[in-house]
Each structure stands twice: as structure tokens, then as C-alpha cells.
């Protein structure tokens, strides 16, 4: 048959050195192709070309970001290593959360596919990150989604948003994973380039940690899960090495369709395989499919693997070897198994109706050799495919416009002064797309499945119980303010880290580890590359200052439409541990008569704020001051207070400032608040400034002094704002001397926005 006739073997490659190869169409640079021939001492076969081109793409090789990401490792101190069990480099990082439990978590982007096919793009984004977590040996226990869209009222936002949200929900709900948090952010720069960042967290016992390596000569390599089809062939390579551009339809990826039911079976089946101790090494198949799984397993292990590619079960018999190697068919895993265990392994898979096939064997040749019906079509040193790809130190320079941007501060924008002006400003902000109620989105996600969800949206963090006896649990939050990052990428990354860290502490958890998803424009643009390097530097230094390591993450470049890059968007996820989830602190005021305190210092910081955006459509100046030491002191207070059971409610202050924080805490349970602004501050600044290292707390009269002492002890400014007032019907938010707003009016303003546009 034709595939036989056209087969390009290693022998053929030696005999016909001068064959023209489509390396450029596959996204390789001339220099990369030359290096490839140098490594092999001959021209690559078409199958080898396929493997290298996809593995050396930006998406798989991190060739433009590697030189910067190194800092995360370099900045890790002994103290940060204390709880770190597996660091950057594996499918996901693992931290020790005590009692013999290990937790693994990671956030990953699926931006471009979600623009092309919103439902399936977002769905397979969830599927991919869940398999990463599973591959570590853990049971996935929750997901989160950080989303960015163009303006809410833009026609294309109405096309992509409902599909993306339905896709996140459709896949996650069908897997039985609670969705406990995320973000929904709107900004014109994401029009034509929405961001879909999905996070998954998993739990395992220490001795269940598994790694992606093929060791033990003679061990069998088993491919199990879905059959291999023509899905997303070359997708990764094309996606990650070309600026996405609607016009260039030929370059459009063929998006994959996900099968969450298959993935659910894959999860239960794989956990049973782990429990039975049948897995020596394991790797999920994601971007670059078999090319990635085989080369990574081999190069991380004893260095050799022999694969019989014709044994791979196919959905489409017409696929040629090159396509099988590049296929990104979803819901597949590859495991390394001792020969004696193979039968048991296959039996467990059969019980779960999961296809499993022995497709290869571990060798000590140091070569990855792939056969197709007896002919050798790949014979390469696996490290050169998986770990020794090209590395670029791309030119970067502070953009010429950066100074002007920072000079254009918000200082001379008109500010509200009278009570009426402040009141209408509040209502305008509460109703704005970025601050409004997100239930239209989050109500499409199952938050309850598995019965361990202690806190979920709209709380500051998602909190999951991991042990029903001890009540040990974890808290997670994702955050990023791209407007701040645009004003100053170094500070912007640290502000995202600080907010996520604060959200976790506010819930009562000790921040412990970080995952990041760095969404930027084209690395070939020195302006963007500068934003990226600054953000990474800021994040690495920030993590060192806070004493929590980056355990893994993801980089997504080429997020731009034409020449216009998105706001630099380093989304930061922070994981915290809470020894007793019954002591978590929720954001909502529970009852009237509680004293409300403001912790932290408020400065006149409105550059890049929601107010500047909503009221003046302005972005300029300098972001709020970063004070990580203050964040640490605040976190100490919040964690100790929740442990001591002093606080009834706590909410971190960020977008929209104190005003937005008060509104969210009041609306949660329809409890009002009556506050008097401290000292002779400018009421506008007090209400709408976005100064960091601040939180709102509500405590009973009897606990007030304890809180004061705690703040005293940690040197955290603590001022009494007022009390929680009426409940239900007549309840309202009043700022003494300025204005009153009924909660009912605030609720309408907050909840009407999304449904009005999205239906």
C-alpha cells in the first residue's frame, strides 16, 4: 500500500542525502535543520523530521523562555526546598503537605485552540492539565480556570465566552472534578486572543509519587487509553511557532475533540494501576503526542527505547507513521511496566474498558529506535529530541513607549468628591464587567462533586479537604492584573504573586508553593521579550522573598492579533495548606453586630486601577507599591487569626479597593455594613485605591482585642472601620457622612451585567 511505498527509512535517508525536506513548513529554522543533520550525521527521515520539528517548537522546547525560567531554580533557597518533593521539570511539581500526603498542582494555557473552537479548545485544555496531574501518581481533586476575554460587549466575546465556559464545565463536570475558583477578566487586548488557563490539583500519599522515566532494560512500554487518530497533527508546532492570525487558514490547527468519559475511565484505571504497584514510569500524551512521550520517557530514564509503531491502535487506518508520531489525540497515557506485570496491567485496563497495547521496550542502547513493519524509521539520541533542543537568548529591550506610559499618571483625572459622586462611582464599578458577579460563569461548574469542597467561588480561594478524619486541606487561588503588568512587568508579576498569596492566607491557609502561566505576545518582538524577562525576574525574586518556590508552570507566547500583543499576563497560582479546614475563613459577613477592621496601609494608588479604567478608560502611571514583607506580616496575622478562631470573615482587597471588598462581603449573605472612614483621609482614595497588603476582617466584640494584639505583634496596621448592620431586606452599605446604598441596589448592579449580554 502507498504508505509502504513512500516510507522514508533510516537506510533511505543514508542513501538519499539530498532529498528536499519541508523543514520550514514544519516551523524549523535553517539553523535548526542544520543542527539536526549534525546530530544524526545524515538527513533526518521524514518521521525524525516530524518528531524534532514538533519537539523543538516553542511550545515543547521553551527555546525562547528557557534562559529566563532558569531563575526559578536558581532562586530556590534551602528553606523553600523544605516542603518541595518534586520541582520544575516533571509533569507537575509536588509538595509535602504533612501527614504523609503530597499535593501536586499546575496551571496550563490552551489559548489559541480556544479561539478557534471555544468549546473543544477549552475542554481539551482541562483534559490536558488533568492528565499531567494524574501522571504524577495523584488523584486529581479539583480544577480552576483563569479566563481573559475582549470587551464584554464585543461580538466575538459573545461567540467565544459561552463556548469556552461551556467547554470548561462540560469536561470538568463530566470528570467529576469540582471547579473551585478562577478569574474572568475583560480587556480589549484579548479580543481575537482570549486566554484559557486551566489549573488542576491532585493528592497522593508520599510513596505514590510517579515520574516520567523509562528505566529497567527489558521493561515494556504500554500505550493505553483512546485510539490514535488524525487529531491536531502538527498542531503544537504550528500553533506555537506562528503568530495566530485568522486570515492564515492554512495554518489553522485541526482542533481536537475531547472525550471526558474516556478520561474519567483513564483516571480510575490509572489510579488502580498505581495502587497495584504496576507502574515503573508514566507519561501523559499531550502536545506532540507519541513524539513527546517516547522521547521524554527515554531520555529521562536509562536512555534507550525500542518502539513498534505499527502496533499503535489507530482510529483511522490511513494514518502514516509521521502522522501517528505527531497526532495529538486526547485521553492517552504511556506506562513503563515490568514484563511480569504486563498481564495484570492489561487485565485492569480491560476491567475499565480501556484499550492497552504493548508498543515498545526499554533498552540501554541510548537510542530511541522506532520501527514500522520491520523497517527502522527513527534512530535518534532521545535527549536531543526532548531535552537538548535549541535555546535562544532573544534580544529584548525596554520599549520606547514605556517611559511615556509610566509618565501618564492618573493623578489629574477628575475624581469624585461629593457623597453622590462617590455613590454613583461605586455603583458604576460594582456593575463593571471586571468587578461584577461572575455567577453566570461559575454556576455552570460543579463545585460540589466528591464532597470535599469547603470554599469555592466567589470566595478568595478554593479550599479542598484532603483528609476526612484530620480535616487537613489545601487552598488555591489564581490571580493576575495585566494592566499593572503593562505599566511595570516586574512589579506586575510580583503584584499577581502577592494577590494570590494574600487570597490563600485570607482563607486561613499557609502559602506553600507557586505555579505560573506566563501569557505573552511574540518573543520575536524585543518589547514583548523585555516584558517577559522582567516578569520572570520579578516572579523569581518575589518567590524568594516570600519563601515559596515555583514548582511548575507554562509559557504561552504569540498571544497577539496582528502586531498588537495582549497585556502581559503572568497568571500566578498559589497553593496553601490549612491543617484544619473547619477553621477556614470565608469572605462573607455572617451576622450583624460584628466589628469591621481594615488591615494594612492605604496610599493614594489609582494608576491602572479599575476606577481609572471604568470611569476614564485610562491606563498609565505606576502600579501600586509592592511590599512583600508587609504581605508576609499580613498573612501571618490572617493565618493565626483563623487558626485561633478569632475572625468571622476576611476578604482581601485588590481590584476596586475597599469599596469593592465591602460590597462583596456584604452581598455574600445579605448582611449590611456601616463604616466611618479613618482619620481625615480623602474618601475617594480610602474607598477606591488599590494599595496592596490589605484585607478586611470582621470579628465579634469579644475577639476585637485579640485581633488588635495580633496585629500589634506582627506590626500590621489595624483600624476599626465600623460594624456589620442589618440583615436581609432593609440591609445596606453606608459610609457615614457620604452615602447609603441598599444591598438590593448593589446586588442588581452586580448581577445584571453578564446575563444582560450573555443571556
Amino acid at each position, binding site marked *: 500500500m502507498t504508505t509502504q511505498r513512500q516510507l522514508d527509512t533510516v537506510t533511505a535517508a543514508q542513501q538519499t542525502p539530498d532529498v528536499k525536506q519541508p523543514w520550514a513548513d514544519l516551523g524549523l529554522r535553517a539553523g535548526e535543520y542544520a543542527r539536526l543533520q549534525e546530530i544524526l550525521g545524515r538527513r533526518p527521515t521524514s518521521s525524525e523530521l516530524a518528531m524534532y520539528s514538533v519537539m523543538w517548537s516553542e511550545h515543547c522546547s521553551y527555546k525562547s523562555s528557557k534562559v529566563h525560567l532558569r531563575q526559578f531554580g536558581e532562586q530556590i533557597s534551602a528553606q523553600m526546598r523544605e516542603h518541595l518533593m518534586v520541582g520544575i521539570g516533571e509533569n507537575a511539581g509536588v509538595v509535602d503537605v504533612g501527614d504523609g500526603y503530597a499535593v501536586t498542582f499546575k496551571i496550563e494555557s490552551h489559548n489559541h485552540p480556544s479561539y478557534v*473552537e471555544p468549546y473543544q479548545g477549552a475542554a481539551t485544555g482541562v483534559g490536558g492539565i488533568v492528565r499531567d496531574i494524574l501522571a504524577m501518581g495523584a488523584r486529581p481533586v479539583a480544577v480552576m480556570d483563569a479566563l481573559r476575554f475582549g470587551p464584554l460587549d464585543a461580538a466575538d466575546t459573545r461567540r467565544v465566552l459561552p463556548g469556552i465556559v461551556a467547554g470548561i464545565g462540560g469536561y470538568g463536570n463530566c470528570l467529576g472534578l469540582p471547579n473551585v475558583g478562577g478569574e474572568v477578566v475583560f480587556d480589549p487586548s484579548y479580543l481575537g486572543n482570549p486566554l484559557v488557563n486551566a489549573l488542576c490539583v491532585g493528592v497522593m500519599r508520599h510513596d505514590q509519587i510517579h515520574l516520567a522515566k523509562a528505566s529497567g532494560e527489558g521493561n515494556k512500554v504500554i500505550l493505553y487509553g483512546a485510539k490514535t487518530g488524525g*487529531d491536531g497533527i502538527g498542531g503544537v508546532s504550528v500553533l506555537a511557532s506562528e503568530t495566530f492570525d485568522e486570515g492564515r487558514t492554512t495554518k489553522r490547527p*485541526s*482542533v*481536537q*475533540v*475531547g472525550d471526558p468519559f474516556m478520561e474519567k475511565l483513564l483516571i480510575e484505571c490509572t489510579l488502580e494501576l498505581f495502587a497495584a504497584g504496576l507502574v515503573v514510569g508514566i507519561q501523559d500524551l499531550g502536545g506532540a503526542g507519541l513524539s513527546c512521550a517516547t522521547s521524554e520517557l527515554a531520555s529521562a530514564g536509562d536512555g534507550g527505547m525500542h518502539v513498534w509503531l505499527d502496533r499503535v491502535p489507530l*482510529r483511522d487506518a490511513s494514518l502514516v507513521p509521521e502522522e501517528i508520531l505527531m497526532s495529538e*489525540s486526547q485521553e492517552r497515557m504511556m506506562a513503563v511496566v515490568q514484563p511480569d506485570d504486563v498481564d495484570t496491567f492489561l487485565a485492569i485496563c480491560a476491567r475499565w474498558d480501556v484499550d492497552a497495547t504493548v508498543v515498545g521496550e526499554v533498552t540501554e542502547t541510548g537510542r530511541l529506535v522506532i520501527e514500522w513493519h520491520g523497517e527502522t524509521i527513527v534512530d535518534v539520541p532521545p535527549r536531543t529530541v526532548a531535552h537538548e533542543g535549541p535555546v535562544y537568548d532573544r534580544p529584548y529591550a525596554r520599549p520606547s513607549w514605556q517611559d511615556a506610559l509610566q509618565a501618564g499618571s492618573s493623578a489629574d483625572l477628575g475624581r469624585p468628591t461629593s457623597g453622590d459622586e462617590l455613590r454613583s462611582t461605586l455603583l458604576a464599578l460594582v456593575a463593571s464587567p471586571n468587578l461584577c458577579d461572575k455567577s453566570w460563569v461559575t454556576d455552570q461548574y460543579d463545585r460540589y462533586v466528591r464532597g470535599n469542597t469547603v470554599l469555592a467561588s466567589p470566595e478568595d480561594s478554593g479550599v479542598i479537604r484532603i483528609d476526612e478524619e484530620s480535616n487537613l486541606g489545601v487552598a488555591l487561588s489564581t490571580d493576575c492584573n495585566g494592566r499593572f503588568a503593562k505599566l511595570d512587568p516586574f512589579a506586575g508579576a510580583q503584584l499577581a504573586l502577592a494577590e494570590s498569596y494574600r487570597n490563600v492566607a485570607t482563607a486561613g491557609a499557609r502559602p506553600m508553593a507557586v505555579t505560573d502561566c506566563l501569557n505573552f505576545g511574540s518573543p520575536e518582538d524585543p518589547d514583548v521579550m523585555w516584558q517577559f524577562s522582567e516578569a520572570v525576574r520579578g516572579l523569581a525574586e518575589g518567590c524568594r522573598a516570600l519563601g515559596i518556590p515555583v514548582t511548575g508552570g507554562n509559557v504561552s507566547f504569540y498571544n497577539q492579533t496582528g502586531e498588537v500583543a495582549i497585556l502581559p499576563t503572568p497568571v500566578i497560582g498559589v497553593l496553601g495548606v490549612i491543617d484544619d479546614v473547619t477553621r477556614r475563613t470565608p469572605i462573607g459577613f455572617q451576622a450583624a453586630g460584628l466589628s469591621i477592621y481594615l488591615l494594612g496601609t492605604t496610599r493614594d494608588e489609582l494608576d491602572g486601577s479599575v476606577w481609572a479604567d471604568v470611569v476614564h478608560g485610562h491606563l498609565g502611571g505606576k502600579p501600586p507599591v509592592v511590599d512583600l514583607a508587609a504581605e508576609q506580616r499580613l498573612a501571618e496575622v490572617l493565618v493565626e487569626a483563623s487558626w485561633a478562631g478569632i475572625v468571622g470573615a476576611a476578604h482581601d482587597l485588590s481590584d476596586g479597593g475597599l469599596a469593592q471588598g465591602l460590597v462583596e462581603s456584604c452581598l455574600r449573605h445579605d448582611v449590611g455594613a456601616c463604616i466611618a472612614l479613618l482619620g481625615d483621609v480623602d474618601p475617594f482614595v480610602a474607598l477606591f485605591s488599590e494599595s496592596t497588603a490589605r484585607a478586611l476582617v470582621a470579628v465579634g466584640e469579644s475577639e476585637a482585642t485579640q485581633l488588635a494584639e495580633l496585629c500589634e505583634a506582627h506590626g500590621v496596621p489595624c483600624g476599626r472601620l465600623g460594624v456589620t448592620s442589618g440583615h436581609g431586606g432593609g440591609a445596606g452599605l453606608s459610609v457615614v457622612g457620604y452615602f447609603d446604598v441598599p444591598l438590593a441596589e448593589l446586588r442588581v448592579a452586580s448581577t445584571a451585567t453578564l446575563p444582560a449580554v450573555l443571556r
Partner: protein
Amino acid sequence: MARVVVDVMLKPEILDPQGKAVLGALPRLGFGGVVDVRQGKRFELEFEGDITEERLAEVRKAAETLLSNPVIEDYTVRVEQA
């Protein structure tokens, strides 16, 4: 009243989890001989009055933009005598 039917099916190279589920169930229920199943969507559009060429063109446009996503699906449009 005239009816236009739009059938939307996933492209052959795209995985069809729904069809796969049915294909898997059939033998278990004792139905044999089926080698493949694809599941798609059928839309029945009712019009007042006759189906003009313009209308059909409009339906094709709707099928391409709203009822299907050409990236993963193919569609067919045909007039049906109700």
C-alpha cells in the same frame, strides 16, 4: 410552510465520542454487524412561504457560521417536502 434540513456531522478525521459510545453499546445489547457509528445534529428549519435560492444561500451561511464550526464539522443543506 416549507422545511429546510441541515445535517451537521463531525469531520471524518475528528473523534466522535458520541458515536463511539453508541458503537460500544450496540453489541452489548445484541445488535451486531455495525462497524461504525457517527452521531451528529439534525436541524429542521421551517419557513413561511417558498424556499427561494436567496433563502437557501442564507441557510448555508447560517449553517456555516452558527449551526456548525467548519474547523471540526461538515454540514449539508437540503429542502424537504413536509
